[in-house]
């Protein structure tokens, strides 16, 4: 056991002391924040404006098609499909002549094709206009319609989960966000740290140091020491990320203008229920920050972080030994590693796809099975846990999933160790999966 400890130390320190580790540790959170801010920024600023010429033989849509940031509708004369470009329009929209209430084609022709979202928006605007026309025909005045449109958007759905007598506010959007983020994080780290194990084992083999070491320690100890050491590197990285993110958020909050901070504090004290006057005073952004803090506070973080660490470690141990087994049979050619890795990476990718489905429907039979089978459970279970324990995931399911994962990694470690100890000392021979399976199930 003492020797495993020495191996773990080396695997850990040699990676943590590496400059690349520090770089990744600090750059990834910054990059993520930058990505979020950047995409938000560009969704406001970075979009193109389209000037659309509308040819409307009915003379109806003028004033009915509302302009927006991105879409400007104009109703010029003498514009047709042959000359709209030269007249400075990016698109031309051809309305049909109304014939009763029949379904008709509205044709959009563009210089450059339009994105799906914009097309949807145009389609929605046309349909709203037609709806208005029908209501008008039925005798409702335009001015009444306008006021209804303005005042009707007031419903806000508040969902609650019933747990016995208590009921808890549920927030599907946040649950989905957390589930998705943790699933994705496990997916990415599984690849990063899995391949780190693979490369480490390959290094020992191709550098020909494996035999020097296994004459001092058992191959199993070497493999386990490497896996545990790299797993510890992963945990360290997560810890640093959490610290960096918390610090960045704290700094960000501190940089807010004073009066906004005051408003947020007031909102907190009154539980969001300020008087109408106070509510109106509070700026939109202060309300957003308050809402953000509020949902963060209602989330069961200890459970989520605890489960995340468990499923990260469990999933890592489950797959890492398989990666180690593959690394042990690879000779000089990295190409071999690629093809041998395929059967391992496939279930990881597949699990990620399942996660994306499960996150929409966390209670289906597929969600249950995928969160119990250790190949996919780390990602899928994390996606479900964020919806709530025990409301969405009963305790027994969580326990079963954890037990199968532990059993799963014990099994893969045991089988991989047998492949590893044969492969690590074998040079100059191309090994197939068939042979590896034979070694794994060989006696002794």
């Amino acid at each position, binding site marked *: 056991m003492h020797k495993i400890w*020495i191996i773990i130390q080396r695997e850990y320190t040699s990676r943590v002391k590496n400059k690349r580790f520090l770089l990744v540790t600090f750059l990834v959170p910054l990059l993520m924040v930058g990505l979020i801010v950047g995409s938000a920024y560009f969704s406001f600023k970075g979009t193109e404006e389209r000037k659309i010429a509308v040819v409307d033989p009915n003379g109806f849509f003028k004033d009915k098609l509302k302009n927006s940031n991105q879409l400007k509708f104009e109703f010029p004369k003498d514009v047709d499909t042959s000359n709209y470009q030269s007249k400075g329009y990016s698109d031309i929209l051809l309305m049909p002549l109304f014939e009763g209430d029949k379904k008709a084609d509205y044709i959009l022709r563009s210089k450059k094709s339009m994105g799906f979202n914009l097309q949807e928006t145009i389609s929605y605007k046309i349909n709203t206009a037609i709806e208005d026309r029908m209501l008008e025909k039925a005798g409702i005045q335009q001015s009444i319609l306008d006021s209804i449109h303005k005042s009707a958007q007031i419903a806000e759905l508040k969902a609650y989960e019933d747990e016995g007598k208590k009921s808890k506010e549920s927030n599907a959007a946040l649950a989905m966000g957390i589930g998705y983020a943790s699933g994705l994080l496990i997916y990415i780290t599984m690849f990063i740290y899995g391949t780190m194990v693979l490369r480490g084992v390959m290094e020992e083999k191709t550098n*020909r*140091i494996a*035999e*020097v070491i296994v*004459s*001092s320690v058992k191959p199993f100890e070497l493999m386990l020491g490497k896996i545990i050491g790299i797993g510890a590197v992963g945990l360290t990285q997560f810890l640093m990320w959490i610290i960096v993110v918390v610090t960045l958020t704290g700094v960000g909050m501190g940089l807010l203008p004073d009066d906004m901070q005051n408003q947020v504090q007031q909102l907190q004290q009154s539980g969001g229920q300020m008087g109408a006057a106070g509510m109106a005073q509070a700026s939109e952004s202060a309300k957003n920050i308050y809402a953000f803090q509020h949902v963060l506070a209602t989330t069961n973080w200890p459970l989520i972080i605890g489960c995340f660490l468990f499923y990260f470690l469990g999933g890592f141990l489950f797959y890492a030994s398989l990666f180690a087994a593959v690394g042990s049979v690879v000779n000089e050619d990295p190409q071999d590693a690629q093809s041998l890795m395929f059967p391992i990476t496939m279930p990881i990718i597949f699990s990620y796809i399942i996660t994306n489905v499960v996150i929409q429907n966390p209670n289906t039979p597929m969600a249950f099975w995928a969160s119990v089978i250790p190949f996919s459970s780390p990602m899928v279970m994390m996606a479900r846990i964020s919806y709530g324990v025990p409301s969405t995931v009963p305790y027994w399911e969580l326990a079963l999933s954890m037990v199968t994962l532990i059993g799963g990694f014990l099994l893969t470690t045991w089988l991989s160790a047998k492949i590893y100890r044969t492969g690590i*000392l074998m040079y100059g021979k191309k090994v197939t999966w068939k042979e590896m399976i034979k070694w794994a199930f060989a006696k*002794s």
Partner: protein
Amino acid sequence: MEPLLSLSHLVKHYATQKAVDDISFDIQKGSIFGLLGPNGAGKTTLLRMITGIFYPDAGEIKLEGKHFDPLLDIREIGYMPEERGLYKKMKIGEQALYLAQLRGLSKADAMEKIKYWFEKFEMQSWWNKKVEDLSKGMSQKLQFVITVLHEPKLIILDEPFSGLDPLNANLIKDEIYALAKKGSTIIFSTHRMEQVEEICDHIVLVNLGKKILDGTVADIKQQFKESIFAIETNQPELIKDNSLFSIIDKADKNPNKILVKLSNAVASNQVLKYLIEQNIPIVSYNEVLPSLNDIFIQLVEDTQAKARAFQNI
């Protein structure tokens, strides 16, 4: 004297072949022991069993008369495998420390011994260098130091001189003699026969998983001698085939030297007497013993295809 290491009826089978098939021999304490054989003969498998990397399928290994337990006895063995390497990105000093600790030395102990050996081989300045900065010969030296530094009773060296220049090879050779003198036992595995003749006291030759030769170098040479004598004379044309001997080789580099093979039951003195009687001026007359290389080829050739891949230098 009780042997340091004793192998009895060792067997190791792989899926497709019998790598080691019932091999037994003893190695005396303090000896330099040569383990020879062509590639694929089973040498490496044998060494891996002795170092505890593999468990034998059958048979027993005894170290100093006691059953060999890899977990406990690993400390007594230093193994420099043929496929040897180091972590390229790791500093030399840290690497030596790491490997010594894996062998079971405490950190302080390891440090002290590394310092001693680094000083001895003038390697102190290497401490903070990385392996990728070393030449092949330098890393071989480092390998050797790592192998012997925990003062094992049994040192196993698989092709220790490959890639070394004569200067460094001599350095290591002298160290091997010194270690043997201090009481370490050395197993030396190679297919470079001239090195074996020079260094080893005792050899075992394995081929196709079986032991085919076992003895001291001198005994084996005696055993395989073929009554061949070299006669050096100023008048080689006077020597002709006769009933006592036949000439087997005139094409020596030295035209005055002639190799003859004595006929059955002819003593060497009879030949000498004959030469004197013939009034042939003899400069030298001596028996030619076969080289280990010749013996090796003779024994292995029968069993292997002509295209066998062993170094014959």
